[in-house]
């Protein structure tokens, strides 16, 4: 059993990281009061931009191309999220519909652009990030093998962002204001906070993070943009709810989803797991989520003003 877990863990973490950063992006947006179901589309934008930039630069700037690509993806995701911010904040549009539109535009637009720029709807990169053991730390008994073996640099980069985001949200003035806008925007406004500006920033951050998640997929396990991220954006949204809109909560819930999905994917080649029907392993995380939501629904920690456009005149 132990050997099974330790052989799966590095790959489960690789699968979890894009989910984690995307769910964290969703957290920023939703804690400020804007529902963002466009995460899937924003991830697609990120994976497209990342793959395109890396494919163009990897010959001339080997080594740097990947990081420039990740950065470019974040910028592109932030810009794309502006559409959502504009529709939800300035136009008071229905946030679900705007998010759905983002998902639909992203999937088609990126493939269209890819075909026009590169001649193919799939963009292939030659080199992604390589996996490395962290020296010394990997020798720690038990956890060394789980957390420090075969890791990608992007994993640590994302974990750093998670830590910084927690600090920003709970230890800095901006974080307090952001959360206030999601709980009671009128009170926040009365206290002199510009709700629109805060929400704009939050939605842009969510776009940048989700796009980073999409680009991380390209540089770690997929290596090719193909116009979709296979529903990971929606899985991130589920993790956000499952994790009750808290950074540590989503860290746990994304790890749960990541580990469960990986087990389901590889169960066939592991003799100890092969006897369990694949359908049970594949549906397990979703059934667990449903059950958890039933239990949590009474004490849901969703931001109070989530999904409501801010209307100054309404008291």
């Amino acid at each position, binding site marked *: 059993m132990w050997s099974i877990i330790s052989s799966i863990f590095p*790959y489960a973490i690789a699968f979890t990281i894009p989910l984690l950063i995307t769910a964290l992006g969703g957290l920023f947006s939703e804690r400020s009061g804007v529902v963002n179901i466009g995460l899937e589309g924003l991830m697609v934008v990120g994976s497209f931009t990342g793959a395109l930039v890396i494919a163009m630069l990897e010959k001339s700037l080997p080594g740097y191309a990947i990081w420039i690509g990740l950065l470019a993806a974040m910028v592109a995701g932030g810009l794309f999220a502006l559409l959502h911010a504009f529709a939800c904040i300035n136009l008071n549009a229905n946030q679900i519909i705007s998010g759905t539109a983002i998902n639909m535009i992203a999937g088609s637009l990126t493939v269209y652009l890819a075909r026009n720029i590169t001649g193919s709807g799939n963009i292939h990169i030659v080199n992604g990030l390589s996996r490395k053991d962290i020296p010394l730390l990997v020798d720690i008994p038990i956890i060394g093998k789980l957390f420090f073996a075969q890791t990608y640099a992007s994993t640590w980069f994302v974990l750093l962002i998670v830590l910084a985001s927690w600090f920003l949200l709970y230890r800095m003035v901006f974080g307090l204001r952001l959360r206030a806008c999601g709980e009671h925007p009128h009170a926040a406004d009365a206290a002199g906070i510009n709700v629109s500006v805060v929400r704009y920033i939050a939605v842009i951050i969510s776009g940048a993070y989700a796009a980073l998640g999409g680009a991380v997929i390209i540089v770690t396990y997929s290596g090719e943009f193909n116009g979709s991220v296979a529903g990971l954006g929606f899985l991130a949204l589920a993790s956000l709810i499952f994790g009750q809109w808290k950074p540590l909560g989503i860290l746990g819930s994304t790890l749960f989803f990541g580990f469960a999905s990986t087990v389901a*994917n590889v169960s066939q080649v592991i003799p100890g797991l092969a006897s369990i029907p694949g359908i049970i392993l594949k549906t397990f995380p979703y059934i667990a989520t449903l059950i958890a939501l039933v239990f949590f629904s009474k004490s849901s920690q969703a931001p109070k003003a989530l999904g409501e456009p801010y209307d100054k005149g309404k008291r």
Partner: protein
Amino acid sequence: MFKKRIALFLVLFFVLGTLAGCGGDKAPSEQKNDLKVGMVTDAGTIDDKSFNQGTWEGVVKAAEDFNLDTRYLKPSGTTEADYLREIGNLYDAGYKFVVCPGFKFETAIYEAQNRYEDGKYVIIDGSPVDPDGNAVVKENTVAVYFAEEQSGFLAGLATALQLKEGELGYIGGMEIPPVQKYNWGFQQGVQYANENYGTNLTMKAENVIYQGSFDNVAAGQQLAAQMFDKDVRAIFVAAGSVGIGSINEAKARMGNGEEAWIIGVDVDQYAEGIYEGDKSAVLTSAMKYIDTATYDLIKAELEGNFPGGETLVFDAANNGVGIPRENPNLDDEVEAIVADVYTKLQSGELVVSNERGDLLR
């Protein structure tokens, strides 16, 4: 007033735009052929560097040679209704010669050949099947099969001769006949090499699997990683985009100096596996020449001898399957032996079974 002007301007703009568009289309197509060729893609994209792309390349080549109108449509799902809708859309737009690559089109093509009697249909890897499961190829349809088992056999033989000893693995997509035949052929090829050329390669039951889809890239990477971790030296991946993940994993390992080979499928996937300079993690590929088959059928239609109602099989005898002409990762003597065995397949001296028998899965 102002609004009216804007409206008028917009109307003019669109009308002019449409006219300009028409002009642009018509200019280079003076002796355009009447035949319009359409294609409906199976699961995955048109640029999958595999099944869909191979078919489309055949269509495009025919279009260039004979000056045809072409169009492909991507269904929103993979059910019979999704496929039929796109076939109908093509028909309504005048694309009456439609190529559908994929076993999963079987029932949709059966409907289409009855519903649109003046349409012409090519189904690859399957036959039109009625609701009771009987194959019915009508006069306006051609069913095309490939001898995947021969292609897999040659790839298995080449892999065994090149690696000489060790573990091998197989990752298939869905458990459907073409994918299964690749697997069974591959195992027979490895056995043939073990028996006749003194190699010693083994395949464990746990390393012969079907992932269950053609588009789960993450699972492709994770499955390949698990197999390579268990000292599998080469994996034959016949699984569409799932294979993209597996190739990506092999590239990462080769780049780190580990040994991790992939045997590609359908088309020559050498370029997909390049990780440094022109070194590739793809040892060789089990190919079927979908593009040639598609091209030949379009050509036959233009010449007026479309083999309607027939079921065609492309195999070694008519050069419909094989491994790539150039394999930088194979030694010359390996290629020589494979070429020798290929002639035996062509003459029928050597027969590869397309049944499971006592093979794995």
